[in-house]
Each structure stands twice: as structure tokens, then as C-alpha cells.
């Protein structure tokens, strides 16, 4: 049979529940005049009564959506083509009873109309209507305050469809307003939230207690908290958390974004703010309500001067918050990522009573977030979320979701070529990791893109490598061993040694092998002509590093960056001030409250019921909370002794100039990619390059290669031994024996 075009219903049919069909189709479906039928359209279905079209034309369908499923409540999809198979004749027994929820337009109506009257009206309105369980009856055609009726259940419940007669009993289980109803409909499809269980539990409790049990609290004589301030860096999910919790508690949400309220005319902003509070108040009358002030810092900055327009707005907010009395059953939640720029008056009890700090997610939290994100994605079982979580230090929730999105895009791009199964593998995630960087570290000054260096790329120095591994890699990899022996991670490592001996490269390798966040800073970035700026920048650097621990903070050429207090000429130079900042940050009294992340976990030695990898993750989380400072210098004598004591830079590693064996190893690494002819004797070169540093050796190889090119006019294919010897002749070692002596004797 031909398909039917769905047209909008004629105005005269409004509220009639008729479905206009061609008479031919009616007889084909076995429908008689007024028999009920179920029309399914994309997204839902409608229960109608069949009726021939006035012009008796076939091929069209018009229906009045008096009784339709929830999703069609706002509007029927237009311009659809339906198959006749989408029309199902149904039988409708007369109902004994029906339980409904009434949705009314205004709060006033709900408040002032006696339930008896509502019942009377609704009963009259529903008479003669075919209803389907779970569907919504649209009563807008009556033009009263009663807008919809939701059919909760019907009696007899053997059927889902029925006909309401004047004898059908109507039981009203609740009355809601349209706004509340619609917001509830929206809340049903919120996204899941990962890794914020503790915070959301505490927030939920705060919401639920005063909103759901106000009588208990008042009986105890406790005044419930009215304001909660959420503090955390951008992207950790503050807004999402509030929406989610609000949806779970079943409260209605009034959202205010700071900039939306601010108007240009004087007094406009205050008025808008008052209106928002009024809206929340009226919403609170029909159930719990949360007033959410997003980006509070833009709304209420610290008051300055005397007549800034923001001052008035802050004052208005303070007044409004103080003006809330206990009968106003709504809660104010503010969110900000710059709590310090808020007006301090807002942060006292009675206004924002509680502050909930959401830090950048920890390892466990990241894993939880990832598992939530990947729940709906076709992810290969091979993907190891724990490992992924380890590699995403410093990523916040938003970053992780971007990461998953990017990985999914990669998978789609790849699979669209061969149209295979759409699954995301670990490689997609790893690829995505390269393009999605943590937003915690964005705009941080020490942010460096480092090309990964493996340990093998560094020749020799095995002892040093081992020491570095001990202090950086081991705590990550064997946390339980560290805990067992009561070891704590070293706070800092100082690498010293003659220049060009791979100190920087060593650190790079360490960072790459441990998947840490890596921040590197040099003097140029820190120094500023303004007094105090450099110190602030350094402190900021540490704060950011702490936000995404485990993290390595690399201070190259620390001697130039931070002087020594003993031998500097001016006691108050930038260097000394930086030194004091560094000392404080490394061994300070404690964390700032705002930098708290997750809850404090204390490892228990006993009761290891959890699975082993879980435990390991826990260990890692506990052990790797600190920032590891790695410093490198070639003038250790210039450093302040306070820096070198245990607790600060406690591992002091001498990176010696390469010995013969080491030089050989270095040369091997350097010539790995070079087509070296067979007569080249690297051992000989190694013996002849006493006092050459690693950099010198690399240079030597390069020089040899250039010489080879020079000789053979760009067509050289191999590098001969003679080239090496010639370049060796040209060069002189950059180190001197005396220099090395000073290193070996210098510190301590």
C-alpha cells in the first residue's frame, strides 16, 4: 500500500482525538467509525480514533495528538511519511479506574485550587478519552490552567489501553506545574559522572537534608546551610556535578551564568538578580530548588574603590542571600575557578556556608571518569583504562572527554576506510593523547613539548641512570615496596657535573619513562622587571605542578636561576627572593586548601581484600602526591647550602664526564644512524677522546660526517675512519682535568 503523508490536524479537530484517514484505508485496516488505533511515529506514538477524511481522499493522515507518548508532548514531527503498517487498530476496554498526575500551568493555580475542584475538572475533561498507560493527555484545548494529564497507571492493569467513561474512577497522585514537569523530562537524560563520588555525595547530602527533611532540621534547631561554593579549576565538572546532583535529588534548577545577569544600564543587573531570586523562590514552592550561580567570580568580584558597578551587584547579592529566610526552601550553589577573586564577604557562613573543593582528578578519579566515558563507546577489551589513567596526569574531566572524542574520531577515520567494526583500540587513545593536552598545564610557563627520549639513547652513565630510576621511576612502579620499607620518595634531585654530559637528556628520559607531567623552566621565563613577579611566577609554577601530580619540575641551570645567599653581593636580589620561594615550596608547611584533590587516603597495611592492581593504583596515588624537583647545574659550588639539605634536593647525583667505556657507548649511540664504514674503530676513538664530554663526542661524529660529505661532494655513502680522525684533530675537548677535579671535590 502507498505511504501516508502526515499533515497537521485541522483546527476544528483540535482536542477531538481523531485521526483522519482515507475511507479505503479504514476499511483495509478493518476500522470502523471512531475505533481506536495506535499510530507510531518516530520518537513515540499517538492513540487516536479513526475517522474518515471529510474529502474522503486517500494517502493523507491527520491526527490530533490528544493522547501521545511523553516525547511527542511538545510537537508532532512534521512532514513525515508513514507506512500503513505503522497504524495498529487496538481494542479499548472501559476502564474501572485510572491514576494520573496533573500538570498545571501556574503555581498560583496549584496553590489556590482545592484538590476537589481539580479532581472534578479533570474527571470531566477526561471523559470519553482513549488513554494509554504512560502517555500524556493534552488538555490544552480546554484553555484552562490544567495543561496535561499523565496516565500513571490504569485499572484493570491487564491492558495498557482503555477508554474513560463517566464511571471511571480518577485518582490524582500529584499536581505539578508545566515548568517543573518539563525540567523533569529533561533531567531524565543527563550524562553520567565519574570520579566525583565523594564530592557529589557530600553535595547531595547538603541538598537533600534541608530540602527533603526541613522539619527534622528545624526540630533539632539547626539552621540548614543555604549556600555552597564549588571551587575548582576549569573543566573538572563543577557545572555538570550540580546538574547531575540536582537531577538525582529531583530538585528543579535555576541557572544563572554570571555574565548573563550583568546589564549595561545602572540598576539593571541588580534588578535581574532580584528577578532570578524571585524565580527560584517561586520554583521552590513546588519542590526542592537549587539556584546555581555559575562563574560567580565574574558576577561578584572583590569589591574595589567606591563606585564600581560590580560593588552594587555584590551588595545586592549579599542582601538577597541574607534576606533568604528559612521558609525559602532553596539552596544557592556558586561555582568558580578563581575563589581568590571573590568578594570575601560572600564566603562567610550564612552566605556560602560550605566550600566544596574539586581538584584536578587523581589517578583513581581519572580511571573512574574514563570508565564512565567509555561506557557508551565501543572500546576494545584490550584498552587498559588504568594505564590510560596513569598517562593522563593533569587531565581534567573535560580533557578526558575530549580525549575519548578524539580517539573515537580517529577510530572512525580509520575504520571508514575499510568499513570494518567500529571499535576503539589502545592505539587510538595513544594517538589522541598526542593531540589533546591537559588543560591544567595550559598556559603554564614551564609547559614543554618533549620528544620522548629513552634510556637507551643515552650512552654510558649506567650508575647515574640507576640512581635516577631509583628516585623517579621506582616509586611509581613499585609503590608497595616503598611503603613496605617505609621509604618516601625523594623530594628533589640535583644533577651536577661538567657541561655537556647529558644532564638535561637524562631528565628527559626519566620523565618520558615515568609518564609524569613534565614542567621545565628557565631563568628567562621567570625573570620579570617587576618586583615580586618572578616569585609569583615560581609559586604559580609549583601550584600548577601540584595540580597535576605526579609531576617533575625541572630547573635547568639552577645556579643562574637561584643564587646563594652567602656569596651574592646584594642581599635582596631577585635570586635570593626566588631561592626563598623555592625553599618554601619544596619544604613548606602544607598545601593550600584550594589545592586539595580527592580525599586523603591512608594506606592500610592489613586487610588487602582488594585485587592487586587496584591496590597498586592506590599505592601510587598515595605515594606520588608530591612534585619532584629536578635541578641541574654545572656549578654546584654556587648553590645555597639550604637547598642541598635532605628534604629538599636530597639526592645529589654527580654526572661525571664519560670514561672510556662510556665514551664508547656514546659513540655507538651517536653513530647508530650513520653509515659508518667497517674500518672505523670506535674503541680507538674512545681511548683518544679523554676529557671529551658527551656533547663533544656527538659533535665529533657530526663533524666527521660533514667532512665525509665535503670529500665526496655530497655523494658520500659511508663515513671513513679518517674522517673521524680528522675531525678529532680539529677539535679540542671542552673539559679540563682541573675542572673535573673541582667537581669531584666540590660538594660537601
Amino acid at each position, binding site marked *: 500500500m502507498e505511504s501516508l503523508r502526515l499533515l497537521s490536524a485541522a483546527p*476544528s479537530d483540535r*482536542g*477531538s482525538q481523531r485521526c483522519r484517514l482515507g475511507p479505503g484505508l479504514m476499511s483495509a485496516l478493518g*476500522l*470502523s*467509525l*471512531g475505533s481506536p488505533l495506535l499510530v507510531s511515529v518516530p520518537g513515540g506514538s499517538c492513540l487516536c480514533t479513526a475517522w474518515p477524511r471529510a474529502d474522503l481522499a486517500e494517502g493523507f493522515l491527520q491526527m490530533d495528538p490528544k493522547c501521545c507518548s511523553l516525547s511527542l508532548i511538545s510537537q508532532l514531527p512534521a512532514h513525515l511519511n508513514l507506512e500503513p503498517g505503522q497504524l495498529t487498530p487496538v481494542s479499548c476496554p472501559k476502564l474501572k479506574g485510572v491514576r494520573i498526575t496533573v500538570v498545571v500551568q501556574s503555581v498560583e493555580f496549584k496553590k489556590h*485550587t482545592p484538590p476537589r475542584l481539580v479532581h472534578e475538572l479533570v474527571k470531566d475533561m477526561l471523559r470519553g478519552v482513549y488513554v494509554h498507560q504512560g502517555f500524556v493527555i493534552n488538555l490544552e484545548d480546554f484553555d484552562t*490552567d490544567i495543561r496535561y494529564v499523565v496516565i500513571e497507571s490504569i485499572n484493570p492493569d491487564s491492558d495498557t489501553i482503555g477508554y474513560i467513561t463517566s464511571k471511571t474512577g480518577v485518582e490524582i497522585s500529584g499536581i505539578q506545574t508545566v515548568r517543573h514537569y518539563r525540567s523533569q523530562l529533561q533531567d531524565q537524560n543527563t550524562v553520567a559522572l565519574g570520579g566525583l563520588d565523594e564530592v557529589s555525595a557530600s553535595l547531595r547530602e547538603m541538598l537533600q537534608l534541608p530540602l527533603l527533611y526541613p522539619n527534622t532540621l528545624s526540630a533539632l534547631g539547626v539552621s540548614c546551610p543555604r549556600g555552597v561554593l564549588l571551587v575548582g579549576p576549569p573543566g573538572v565538572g563543577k557545572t555538570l556535578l550540580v546538574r547531575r546532583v540536582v537531577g538525582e535529588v529531583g530538585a528543579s534548577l535555576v541557572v544563572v551564568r554570571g555574565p548573563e545577569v550583568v546589564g549595561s544600564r545602572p540598576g539593571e543587573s541588580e534588578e535581574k538578580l532580584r528577578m532570578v531570586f524571585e524565580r527560584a523562590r517561586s520554583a521552590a514552592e513546588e519542590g526542592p530548588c537549587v539556584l546555581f550561580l555559575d562563574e560567580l567570580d565574574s558576577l561578584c568580584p572583590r569589591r574595589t574603590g567606591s563606585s564600581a558597578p560590580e560593588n552594587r551587584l555584590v551588595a545586592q547579592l549579599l542582601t538577597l542571600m541574607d534576606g533568604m529566610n528559612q521558609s525559602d526552601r532553596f539552596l544557592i550553589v556558586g561555582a568558580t575557578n578563581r575563589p581568590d577573586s571573590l568578594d570575601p564577604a560572600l564566603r562567610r557562613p550564612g552566605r556560602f556556608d560550605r566550600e566544596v573543593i574539586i581538584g584536578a582528578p587523581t589517578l583513581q578519579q581519572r580511571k573512574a571518569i574514563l570508565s564512565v566515558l567509555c561506557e557508551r563507546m565501543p572500546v576494545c577489551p584490550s584498552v587498559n583504562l588504568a594505564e590510560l589513567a596513569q598517562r593522563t596526569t593533569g587531565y581534567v574531566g573535560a580533557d578526558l572527554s575530549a580525549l575519548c572524542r578524539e580517539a573515537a574520531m580517529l577510530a572512525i577515520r580509520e575504520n571508514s576506510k575499510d568499513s570494518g567494526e567500529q571499535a576503539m583500540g589502545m592505539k587510538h587513545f595513544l594517538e589522541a593523547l598526542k593531540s589533546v593536552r591537559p588543560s591544567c598545564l595550559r598556559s603554564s610557563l614551564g609547559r614543554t613539548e618533549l620528544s620522548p627520549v629513552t634510556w637507551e639513547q643515552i650512552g654510558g652513565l649506567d650508575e647515574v641512570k640507576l640512581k635516577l630510576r631509583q628516585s623517579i621511576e621506582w616509586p611509581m612502579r613499585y609503590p608497595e615496596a616503598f611503603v613496605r620499607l617505609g621509604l618516601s620518595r625523594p623530594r628533589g634531585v640535583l644533577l651536577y657535573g661538567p657541561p655537556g654530559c647529558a644532564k638535561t637528556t637524562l631528565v628527559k628520559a626519566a620523565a618520558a619513562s615515568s609518564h609524569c607531567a613534565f614542567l621545565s623552566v628557565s631563568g628567562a621565563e621567570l625573570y620579570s622587571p617587576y618586583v615580586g613577579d618572578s616569585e609569583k611566577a615560581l609559586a604559580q609554577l609549583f601550584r600548577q605542578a601540584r595540580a597535576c601530580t605526579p609531576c617533575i619540575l625541572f630547573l635547568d641551570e639552577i645556579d643562574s636561576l637561584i643564587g646563594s645567599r652567602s656569596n651574592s653581593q646584594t642581599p635582596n636580589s631577585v635570586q635570593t627572593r626566588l631561592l626563598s620561594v623555592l625553599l618554601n615550596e619544596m619544604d613548606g608547611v602544607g598545601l593550600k586548601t584550594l589545592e586539595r584533590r580527592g580525599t586523603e587516603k591512608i594506606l592500610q597495611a592489613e586487610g588487602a581484600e582488594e585485587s592487586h592492581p587496584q591496590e597498586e593504583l592506590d599505592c601510587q596515588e598515595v605515594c606520588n602526591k608530591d612534585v619532584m624537583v629536578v635541578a641541574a647545574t654545572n656549578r654546584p659550588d654556587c648553590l645555597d647550602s639550604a637547598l642541598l639539605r635532605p628534604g629538599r634536593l636530597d639526592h645529589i647525583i654527580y654526572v661525571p664526564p664519560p670514561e672510556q667505556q662510556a665514551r664508547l657507548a656514546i659513540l655507538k649511540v651517536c653513530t647508530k644512524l650513520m653509515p659508518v664504514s667497517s674500518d672505523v674503530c670506535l674503541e680507538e676513538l674512545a681511548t683518544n677522546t679523554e676529557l671529551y664530554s658527551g656533547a663533544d663526542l656527538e659533535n665529533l661524529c657530526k663533524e666527521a660526517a660533514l667532512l665525509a660529505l665535503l670529500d665526496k661532494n655530497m655523494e658520500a655513502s659511508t663515513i671513513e675512519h679518517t674522517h673521524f680522525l680528522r675531525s678529532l684533530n680539529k677539535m679540542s675537548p671542552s673539559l679540563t682535568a682541573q675542572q673535573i677535579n673541582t667537581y669531584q671535590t666540590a660538594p660537601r
Partner: protein
Amino acid sequence: MSKPAVISLHQALRRSFVCLENSQKVWRSVLLECGPLMESLGNLAEQSAALSSVQISNTPLRDFPELEDRLRFKLSQATDTVLSKLNDKMSSLQSVRDSVSNQLSAVQQQFEQNSDSLDVIDVTERSAATPSVADMMEWLQDAERHYRQQFLRRKTLLQTLRVDDFSLLESAPKRWKSLDSAEDPVTDTLCKVSFFMESQ
């Protein structure tokens, strides 16, 4: 010639339309009587509002003790009287509505009894003087729905009035009048079936 089922349905429909005609007359007359009552309701509300807005102690009437209370009492008494009269009118309207509803269900019942012998062709057959059964049943349904809607709207209007909300009371006559919709499906229907009703 038409089937016997169609003929009997026609008879039932004819009866219903006669009843509908009467109902329409009663409905109209009752509504006419309601008009002045609504007007006086609005007037009383206006007076109450004026009384509330005037500070008696600042007027020459300040010498009269309890004047405000007494006047308010009188006003609310008068309002009550008007409202109870309106309630009586509403019950007449309700009886009109109920009678039309009964007519409709009678026709529907008759249709259902004969539905086996009627196919879609039969019910959609129409001539110049006789509309099809489907059309007439539709009109009857529409008329019944019209009465039901009208009655419920008016009832809601009256029942949601509150003696202490003067603005609501003051606007009541206006809102009442706005319910007298310009297009009246019942009159249209009666025009459309006039030939049918005469063709006995």
C-alpha cells in the same frame, strides 16, 4: 435504497439534532442571563478594590467607626449573592451539556449495535440533502465537545475566583465574555442539518 441500519441511524440522529436545537436555545438564554450577573460581580470587585486602596482614616469618613469592615462585609455579602445566582445558572448549563452528552452516547450506542452491517462506504455516503452518517456523528461529537469545553471553561473561571483577589474578580466579566467565541460550531451544525431535519 439505504440499508435499514442507516435509516434507523438517521432517525436517531434526527432526534438528537432536534434535542440539540433546543439545548442551544436554552444555553443561549442562560448565557444571556449570566451577562448582567458577571457585570455586577465585576462592579463589586471594583468597589472592593477601591475600598482597599483608600485609606479611610485619611478621608472625611474617618468619623465612622468600623465603616470599612461593615462595608466590606456588605460587599462580600453582595458578591456571595451574585455568585450563588451564577452557580444556579451553571447548573442549568450543566444540564444542557449532560443532555447533549446523552444524545451523543445514544447515537453512538446505536451505531455500535449496527456497526457490523455498516461498512465505511455506507457511513461516508452523502447526498445534497443528507450529509453522511460520519459527518453527522462528527458534528454531534463536535457539538458535545463544544458544550463540554464551554462549560468547563466557565466553571473553571468561576471556581477559581477568590473573594480576596480583586484583580481576578475584576477581570472575570471580561474573561467570561471572551469565552463567547465568535464561531459557534453548534449553530453551524444546525444550519448544515436543517434540510436533513426537515426531510422526514
